[in-house]
C-alpha cells in the first residue's frame, strides 16, 4: 500500500480519480494540474490507476477495425464504380 507523505494540499486519491479524464484531456487549470502531478509523483496507487486508464484507452483504439486490405478496397471501389448513381 502506498504511503502518501505529501504537502498539506495533497489531493486525496478519491478526488484524483474523478479529475483524471479532465487531466488527460488537458482542461484542468494550472493549479489543479500541479496538484494532480504532485500527487501522482508520490502515490503508486494513483499512478497505477492512471496507467490502467491509459491502457484501457489504448485497448479501445485497438478495437477499431483494421483497415481493409488493398484487395478488399479495390473490390469495393469497383462495385461502387459499377453502381451508377443508385436507385432512381
Amino acid at each position: 500500500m502506498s504511503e502518501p507523505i505529501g504537502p498539506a494540499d495533497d489531493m486525496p486519491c478519491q478526488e484524483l480519480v474523478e479529475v483524471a479524464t479532465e487531466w488527460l484531456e488537458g482542461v484542468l487549470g494550472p493549479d489543479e494540474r500541479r496538484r494532480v502531478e504532485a500527487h501522482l509523483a508520490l502515490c503508486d496507487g494513483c499512478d497505477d490507476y492512471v496507467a490502467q486508464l491509459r491502457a484501457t484507452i489504448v485497448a479501445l483504439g485497438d478495437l477499431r477495425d483494421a483497415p481493409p486490405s488493398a484487395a478488399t478496397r479495390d473490390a469495393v471501389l469497383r462495385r461502387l464504380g459499377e453502381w451508377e448513381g443508385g436507385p432512381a
Partner: protein
Amino acid sequence: MVRIARGIVGEALAEEVAQEAWLGVLQGIDRFEGRSALRTWILRIVVNRARTRRERERRSLPFSALVSAEAAPGEPAVDPDRFLGPDHDRWPGHWAAAPAAWRGGEERLLAREARELLSRAIDALPPGQRTVVSLRDVEGWSAGEVCNALDITETNQRVLLHRGRARLRAALDDYLGEG
C-alpha cells in the same frame, strides 16, 4: 456502424439506421471530397441518420436530453469502498487497497479474449457513454468532432467519456487484476 447507431436509436432500430446510412454513403460517395478519412465520413452519416431517426420517433427524448440525464451527478469513477473514509485520521480519501497490477501485461490486454470482453463491456454501457467512448477512443474522433456530430456540450461529452472509461477500466480490472 451498427454499434454507433445503437447508442443513439437503440437496439431495435440500429440495423435499419445503419442500412439507411449505407445507402446514403453509396448515393453520396461521388461527392466525397476526401477532406476527412472515408471511415470518418461514413460514421458521420451514421450519426446524422441516427439522430434524425431518433427525432422522428417522438417517444424518445432528444439525444442531447438523454446525454444530460446520463451526465447528471452521481456516478463515481471508482467504487467509494475502495477508499478510506473522510474521517480517517491519517489518509482520508486515499486508496484503502491500491489498484492491483494487471497480470500478463500488454499481450494479454490486446489478446482476443480481452478484446472480446472489452467489446461486450462497451455494449453494456449506457447509450450516451457507449456512443462517446466509441467515437472518441475507438474511432479516435476529437472532442470537438464528437460535440458537433452529437450536438452536445463539451462538458457533457467529457462526463460521459469519464464515466464510460471508468466502467471499462473496472471491467478490465476484474478480468486482469490480481487476486
